[in-house]
C-alpha cells in the first residue's frame, strides 16, 4: 500500500500532489476528467493534438501546477521519449488516464485495413505504450501509481457497424488485467472504466447518422438515462485515488444500467 501520510478518510479520495497525464483532454470525457482531477488537487498534464482546444480545458482547471502538452498519439513509437521529456519538465508522473479515442461508425464492408489500424492504434496500442512508460524510473513516481484506460461497454456488449471500435476497447480490459499483475510489484495499479453512452461530441457525431427511432431506442436502453461526462470523471477519479488502493485489473462498468437490461 502507499506509504504517503493521509490525514483523514476523505484524503484518500483526493489526489494531492499527484501528477496525472490525461490523454484526449481537449474535449469530451478527457476534458471532463482533467477538470475534475484538478478540483481534487492533482497536477494535471493535458494531452491532445489541438493546442487551442487543450488551452480551453486548461483554462477550466482549478489550482496551479498544471501543464499542456500537444502530441499525436498515433505516433506510438514516439510516446516513450515524449513522456520521458514531460517528466523531466514537469516532474515524475503518478497517474495516466487514457481517454483519447476514435470511433468509426462503419459497416464491415466499408472498413479498410487503414481505417481498422487507425482505431486500434489510438484506442489500444497507445494505451499500452503509455502504460509502458511507467516502467521507466525516470518517469514514474517512486511511491507507485495508477493507470486508468477509458474503455466502453461496447467492449462487453455491442452493436452493428462499430466492430473496430468494439475490438479496440475490448483489448483494453485484457491489457489492464495483464499489466495489473505485471506492475503490482511497482505499486502501480491498472484499471479500466467502461462507460455506456455519454453526452459528448463523439456521441453527437455518431448519432447524427441515425434516425429518430434509433436515437429514442438508445436513450431507452439506459434506465438512468444517457450519462454525463462527470459520471465517467467521478469513477476515474475514484480508481486513480488511494480509496481504490486495493483495486487493480478491474473493469468498472459505468453505464446507467445499460447492461442490466
Amino acid at each position, binding site marked *: 500500500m502507499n506509504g504517503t501520510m493521509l490525514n483523514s478518510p476523505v484524503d484518500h479520495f483526493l489526489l494531492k500532489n499527484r501528477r496525472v497525464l490525461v490523454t484526449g483532454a481537449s474535449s469530451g470525457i478527457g476534458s471532463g476528467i482533467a477538470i475534475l482531477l484538478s478540483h481534487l488537487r492533482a497536477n494535471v498534464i493535458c494531452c491532445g493534438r489541438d493546442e487551442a482546444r487543450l488551452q480551453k480545458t486548461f483554462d477550466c482547471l482549478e489550482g496551479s501546477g498544471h501543464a499542456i502538452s500537444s502530441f499525436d498519439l498515433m505516433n506510438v513509437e514516439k510516446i516513450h521519449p515524449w513522456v520521458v521529456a514531460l517528466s523531466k519538465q514537469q516532474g515524475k508522473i503518478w497517474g495516466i488516464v487514457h481517454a483519447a479515442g476514435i470511433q468509426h461508425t462503419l459497416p464491415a464492408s466499408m472498413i479498410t485495413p487503414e481505417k481498422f489500424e487507425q482505431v486500434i492504434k489510438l484506442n489500444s496500442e497507445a494505451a499500452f505504450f503509455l502504460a509502458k512508460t511507467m516502467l521507466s524510473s525516470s518517469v514514474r513516481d517512486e511511491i507507485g501509481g495508477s493507470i486508468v484506460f477509458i474503455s466502453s461497454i461496447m467492449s462487453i456488449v455491442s452493436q452493428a457497424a462499430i466492430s473496430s471500435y468494439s475490438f479496440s476497447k475490448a483489448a483494453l480490459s485484457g491489457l489492464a488485467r495483464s499489466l495489473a499483475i505485471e506492475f503490482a510489484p511497482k505499486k502501480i495499479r491498472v484499471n479500466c472504466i467502461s462507460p455506456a453512452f455519454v453526452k459528448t461530441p463523439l456521441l453527437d457525431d455518431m448519432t447524427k447518422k441515425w*434516425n429518430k427511432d434509433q436515437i429514442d431506442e438508445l436513450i431507452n436502453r439506459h434506465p438512468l438515462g444517457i450519462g454525463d461526462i462527470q459520471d465517467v470523471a467521478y469513477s476515474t477519479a475514484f480508481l486513480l485515488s488511494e480509496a481504490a488502493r486495493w483495486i487493480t485489473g478491474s473493469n468498472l462498468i459505468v453505464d446507467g444500467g445499460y447492461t442490466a437490461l
Partner: protein
Amino acid sequence: MKINEMIPELEDMLGFDAGTISVDGKIADIPDWDSMAILTFIAFVEEKFDLVLEGDQIAGVTTFKELFQLLGDKVE
C-alpha cells in the same frame, strides 16, 4: 460521378446482386434494404463524396431516385 457507375459500386458494398438497385425502383421492394444498408449507404456517400447524410434525411425517402437526389450535384 454518373449514377450508372455508382450503382454497381454501391451494390457491391451492400452485398446485393448486380441489378438489384435501379434509379426508378422503390426502396420497399428490396427486402435487404434495412438499417445496416442505410448505414452502409451513409458511409459510402461520406467516403465517396465527402458528404455527410443524416439518418432523418433518409427516413422519409421511398424511391432510389429520391435517395440519389440527396447527393445533389455529386452525381448525374
